[in-house]
């Protein structure tokens, strides 16, 4: 009998740990989503900028706002900068995608483990109850 209760307690502690892990995972996934959103917005903006830059004449003046300073920039330079930024953001997004996939998988497996634990606990409790 006592062994059963201690087994149940062990299982329950295990369950707690797993649920903590699960909640951590979920928080990570949520953060990931947020960062992804930010990046997606930035990517969209940069693509708009690129489009506009393409419509400019060669002699048009382009300025970049760096802090409180508006600095004149070369059109070609601005173009290449924006393009590089777009590439960087897309790479980041892909990386984040992979991470989130990974996290989700881990989350699912944790959920399964938790379920199994719960079932075990229940079965033990029912046998205890019967006994």
């Amino acid at each position, binding site marked *: 009998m006592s062994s059963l209760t201690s087994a149940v307690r062990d299982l329950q502690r295990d369950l707690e740990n797993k649920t903590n892990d699960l909640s951590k995972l979920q928080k990570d996934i949520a953060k990931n989503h947020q960062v992804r959103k930010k990046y997606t917005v*930035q990517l969209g*903006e*940069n693509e*708009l*900028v690129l*489009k*506009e*830059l393409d419509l*400019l004449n060669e002699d*048009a*003046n*382009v*300025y*970049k*706002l*760096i802090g409180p300073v*508006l600095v004149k*920039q070369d059109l070609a330079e*601005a173009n290449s900068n*924006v393009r590089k*930024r777009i590439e960087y953001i897309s790479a980041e997004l892909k990386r984040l995608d992979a991470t989130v996939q990974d996290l989700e998988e881990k989350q699912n497996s944790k959920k399964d483990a938790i379920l199994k634990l719960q079932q075990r606990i229940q079965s033990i409790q029912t046998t205890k109850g019967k006994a």
Partner: protein
Amino acid sequence: MEDTRRGTVTSLASLFPVEEAQKAANRVQGAMAEKRAELDHLLGFVADNNNLINLVHKLPEELSHEIMVPFGKAAFFPGRLIHTNEFLVLLGEGYYAERTSKQTAEILRRRGKALDSQVDSLEAMIKDLQAEANFFGQTIAEAAEGLVEIREDYIEEDTHGEESKSGPLKQHTSDLEKTEANNEEYTRMVARLDELEKEEELAAESGNDNEIYEQTTEDDFHKSVSPVDQSNNKSIATESAEKHHNPDIADQLNFASLDLQSNVGEGKNAAAKKVKFVDHTGKPLIHHEEKTVKATTASKSEVQHQPSQPSFDSHKAFTGSIVEHTENLKTLNGQSSSSTSSQVSGSQPSKPVSRFKMQRR
């Protein structure tokens, strides 16, 4: 024959517990409110953009404008606005470009178009949420009124074999009219099945479209409706609810002819008639008596007590997965794929092969 029908009465409230439906409805309302707020935000942007375009048009009309220039947080001084045709336009990400007023107006117009498309997509989303909310509202109202779902045995009238079967037709029994079903019916069925299969193929297209919708609504259903068994019912239910609001839907689910559900709403009845299987399996042949469209089938769950039901993929459009009676399932299980089963064979346990094959194509 009409008066000998038996049926089950299930209160809708038990299928869709009122509180849960309420909760779901509230959730949808919350999501809608969010989207509306975003929409207002975007509309504000659109308005600002338009004002800006007007201003940009007006400025070059004069060589210089007399204005009050803001100075710090709380002061102004009179000044003049010069170079009225030169604009430093923000392109995004801290990039500015020097443009004339006409070019600036172009840039602003393009931005306005992008905003408009965003507004459109938001509006579409709001509409969808609205439809969901309506559905929930309806469900709640109906459940509150104590609307009941009545299922009765479908008793076919065109064969004499039916007469004898109508007696033992019960919903909760897994009575097999094996003895009753005889070869002539069998041959008839087979011919029927072939026809139905063809119709199913036609239905395959329309069936696919609804699948997606099913899946999204399925989640809501899952929350509001209870256990596992129902999951099958729900997908079918939602599908049917979406598709045809046809009372026969639940019935359909049990029958190969259900494939028709995806295509021929009306034809279902006709098909159902032809598919007499119902008798055998004792599944509630949903008939016109069925009062509600919500085909979440309590009866189905009963029916599906039959243990070895052919594997039912609740995420696929229902295509004729027919629950077979246990006696026959043993022989048929091996052969049936996820959606094949044969009610006809229910009557002929000796025949090992599932004659009625309705497969999802």
